[in-house]
Structures are given as structure tokens and as C-alpha cells.
């Protein structure tokens, strides 16, 4: 693959990870984590591991987001730190 594409994906990966770490709203953090998983799946695919990328896209960007949002609805939206 082109190394420029991988560099762009890595930069967006860092941005989504930092937003998920620093956000006050936990719903934003959950959505950013699913975006992180999807970019990670694209990176796995560019590295040639198609099976791992498929698993990451389905589990990380599909089911984990649903379970995180259900857990947020059970507790509270805001974080304190």
C-alpha cells in the first residue's frame, strides 16, 4: 500500500484517541472509540491481515459501541475528570 495513506490513517487514529481520552461527554468518547476501531480495521487491512481487520470492524465498530452506549444509559453521561 501507499505509505501516504497509512500516514493519514495514523494521524486520524491519534486524533480520535486523544478526543476519546479528553472529552467530557462520555457519549462522544464512545462514538470516538468506535471510530478508532474502524480506522484500526482499515490499518489492519492495509497491512495485509484481512481476517483480523474484518473481525475488528465487526466487533470493535459494531457490538462494542452498542454495549458502551447501553452502559452509559445505565449510569451517567458526564465524567468528572
Amino acid at each position, binding site marked *: 500500500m501507499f505509505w501516504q495513506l497509512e500516514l493519514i490513517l495514523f494521524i486520524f487514529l491519534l486524533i480520535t484517541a486523544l478526543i476519546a481520552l479528553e472529552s467530557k461527554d462520555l457519549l462522544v468518547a464512545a462514538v470516538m472509540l468506535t471510530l478508532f476501531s474502524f480506522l484500526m480495521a482499515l490499518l489492519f487491512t492495509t497491512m495485509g491481515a*484481512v*481476517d483480523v481487520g*474484518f*473481525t475488528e470492524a*465487526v*466487533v470493535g465498530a*459494531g*457490538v462494542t459501541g*452498542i*454495549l458502551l452506549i*447501553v*452502559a452509559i*444509559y*445505565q449510569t451517567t453521561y458526564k465524567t468528572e475528570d
Partner: protein
Amino acid sequence: MTNRSPSPIILLGTRFLSPYIMVFGFYVIFHGHYSPGGGFQGGTLLAVSLLLIRIASGTQIANLQFKDYLATPYAALGVVIYFGTGLVAMIMGGYFLDYEQLPIPGLEAADLRYWGILIIELGIGLTVMTVLTLIYDNMVKGEDYA
């Protein structure tokens, strides 16, 4: 989350989208011999198609699609399918999970391995689908999210 009126657009949209995701899940399981995929991915896609209805329309309508008390027996059935395939191969005279010894007549050894892999992928898919649905059903407490 308690006083939210259900939106008909979301209900209809998820009801249109869910069967296609389910068909794609079956495709991923049964086409895993030729393309990326397999039991884990296909089972997760089937679970996503069930969870979509569960999120959008609540437990009343979702129980028409998949009853929540059926989740634990089906998960155990998936483990029994996998373990039973290995046990049958062991009883017929081979090693544990040695698909060459499966009692399917009229096939050579390599084709027996093909069908053995397909059977265990079905078991994995059943377990993964029901376990993810089970986790969601038990995490949602009290109020309905419709």
C-alpha cells in the same frame, strides 16, 4: 430515556435493514472457506442484526424475532455441536477433532475435512450470536429503550 415516543421512521428503517444484515452474516459464515470470514465474524453480524431491532423497538417486539430465554440453551447447543464433532471423530477411531473419521459416506478425506470445518463454524456462529444477544438482554435493566 423513559418518556420518549417511538419514531416510526426508525422502526421501519431498522425493520428493513435487519434482514439484509442477517443474510450477510449467513454469507460470511458459509463463504468463509473462500473469502475472509468465518464463525466469529458471521455470528457477530447475526447478533448485530438482532441487536438493531432490540435497540430500536424494545423488548416486546424483539421477543417476536428471538425469544430472550432461548439464548442460553442455544449457546450451550453451539458448544455441544463443536465438542460433539470432535467426540464423534474420536469414537470412530481417530484423534479428537480429526475430521477424517467423521461418518459421512461417499467422501474422500480432504472433502471430509471441508465439511467438518463447516460444521464447527456453524457451532461457533450459533454460540457467538446468542452470547452477544444474552449480554445485551441482561445489561438492559428495567425500562424499555423504545
